[in-house]
């Protein structure tokens, strides 16, 4: 394919509501396991402050893409840029400290720690994470003071997600839905700019689902957070995401708003198992 042709293709792939200020840019991402190509040149971007959906049939490469962006896997090729900086292959903790955090498909609560401990763990760069400061008399004063602030914020966050009544409970004793709320509360405590949500609603009952979505919208509105959402429930995606990316066979098949996606015959075919 000649240069201009390729450029043109890229043009058309991105739909009319082109992204003016992308926060996250994934460019030609590729991931192989052994000889199997799981992600094959996926290219898309997520606008700052948006709620973007990432969907696709099983095996489309959504999870691997997610894992490559968040540093769980090292990509075989391609580039990931966050906030204008190249973050390809950086360790998860570096990403989190730069404001890019994720939740897990199956909620991964720290089950033998209390809900409050779970949430208080999250804030970055806590002074008390230094052994010397924690132990030395005199210096510990700063730790205690910072800790009180973290605690107060933790309580507020738990109240925001309405799980404050569970604060002293071991996280392992929570129900599936409550764990999802806890995970959201926890990533929020890291003071992120962008949150990647891996099926946040799987196994969550409708009432709780409503609550979670409401919180997500509120966080966007009031704190300008950006969300990228992988979700199986199409209704949720169609009704909540202003921008949707469809993956198929490791690449991006289509992009656009809900209407564009639902009327795209190729997307339907991909979901029915046809060759696209």
């Amino acid at each position, binding site marked *: 394919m000649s240069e201009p042709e390729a450029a043109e293709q890229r043009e058309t792939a991105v739909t009319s509501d082109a992204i003016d200020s992308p926060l996250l840019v994934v460019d030609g991402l590729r991931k192989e*396991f*052994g000889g*199997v190509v799981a992600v094959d040149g996926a290219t898309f971007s997520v606008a700052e402050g948006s709620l973007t959906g990432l969907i696709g049939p099983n095996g489309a490469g959504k999870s691997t893409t997610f894992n490559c962006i968040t540093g769980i*896997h*090292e990509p075989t090729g391609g580039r990931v840029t966050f906030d204008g900086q190249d973050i390809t292959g950086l360790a998860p903790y570096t990403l989190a400290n730069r404001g890019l955090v994720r939740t897990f498909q199956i909620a991964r609560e720290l089950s033998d720690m209390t809900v409050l401990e779970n949430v208080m763990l999250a804030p970055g760069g806590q002074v008390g994470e230094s052994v010397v400061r924690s132990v030395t008399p005199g210096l510990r004063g700063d730790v205690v003071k910072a800790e009180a602030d973290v605690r107060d914020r933790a309580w507020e966050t738990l109240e925001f997600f309405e799980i404050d009544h569970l604060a002293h409970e071991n996280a392992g004793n929570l129900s599936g839905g409550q764990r999802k709320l806890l995970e959201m509360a926890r990533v929020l405590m890291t003071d992120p700019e962008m949150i990647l949500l891996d099926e946040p609603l799987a196994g969550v009952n409708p009432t709780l689902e409503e609550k979670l979505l409401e919180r997500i919208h509120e966080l966007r509105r009031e704190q300008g957070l950006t969300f990228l959402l992988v979700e199986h429930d199409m209704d949720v995606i169609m009704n909540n995401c202003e921008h949707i990316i469809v993956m198929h066979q490791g690449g991006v098949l289509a992009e656009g708003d809900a209407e564009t996606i639902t009327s795209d015959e190729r997307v339907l075919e991909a979901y029915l198992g046809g060759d696209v």
Partner: protein
Amino acid sequence: MGIAEFARDGRVVMGDRPGAAVVAAVSGFLLLDLVAKLAGTTVFFLGTRLLGGSLTVGSLLSMVVDGLLVGLAVGLAGIGLSMTYSILDFANFAHGDTVTVGAFLGWVAAYITAGLGTGAPIAELFMLNSGRQLSTVSTFAPVLLGLVVAGVGSIGIVLLIDRLTYRPMRDTDNISLLIASIGVALALRYLIAFVFGTQTSGVASGGLRVTVFSMISVTDNEITLLVVSLLLMLGVHLLLQRTKLGKAMRAMADNEDLARVTGIPTERVIRLTWILGGGLAGVGGYLLVLESGTISFNFGWILLLLIFAAVIVGGIGSIYGAMAGGILIGLVDSLALIWLPSGLTRASAFLVLIVVLLLRPSGIFGGVSTA
């Protein structure tokens, strides 16, 4: 899962190229040095000895034979450790003491039968301290009987231990099982001490010395160890390759969930694992005593780390790896004497263990059947 595993392995190997290079360089140097030593030449560099020295082919050969013999017994004992690791999924720290138990049961049986009619008091015979030294040639039947008792007895003991300790814990994590096995190890070891005391008894010495190729000299007891170990290894091989239950064992080590949906009776496979592993450990212990001549309550425990080394070097979970790893570790343990003072040869075997775990956790022979 298979794919992820593969990818991770790949990454590990990539990251460890420098480590592998160092290992290759060191091995190359040692080999060169060995050749120089055998040739009797010494290379000096800036006034210090770089390599070389002197070593006779005869002493090298006898070191090889020593290492081979110990390695065979260690490998035999290692098979069981490897099997419990792959099928029950935990590192069994009581395995060394199973080796001791088997050895004691076998030797008591051999000693008593050999001593009957000699007028020695039964207590002395039972306590293995009549001072008599058995050998394959002079007391063939008792030595053979002891071998059988060592195997059968340790099978009985491990089955009992499994029933009491591990079976109620089938679904627990592997660290809890490991800790339980530490408890079993303590209990077994000191029960033996309670019954037999803590002294070291000399019970066997070669009755016949054969010289092969006019350079290697071996005793009848050592030949017994060689023959029995090889036969048993062949037996294990046939069992795993030819019998239905043996194949089921390999299947379960491979993929326990699939084994279950295929209708393989997992509890029976576990029982066979203990029977094979326990029996071989007991026989291995019995043969080691036959070769070294002495027995004491904690010799298996001291041996455990060497057995672990054998199993890990061979690739934990792989039965053939355990056999090969045993021989390799036996040789390292013995040949290290060429370069190291005698107090440090054992350390070199442990060093090999650590290096393998860090650089190639799947073992040198790379998980023929993986857990």
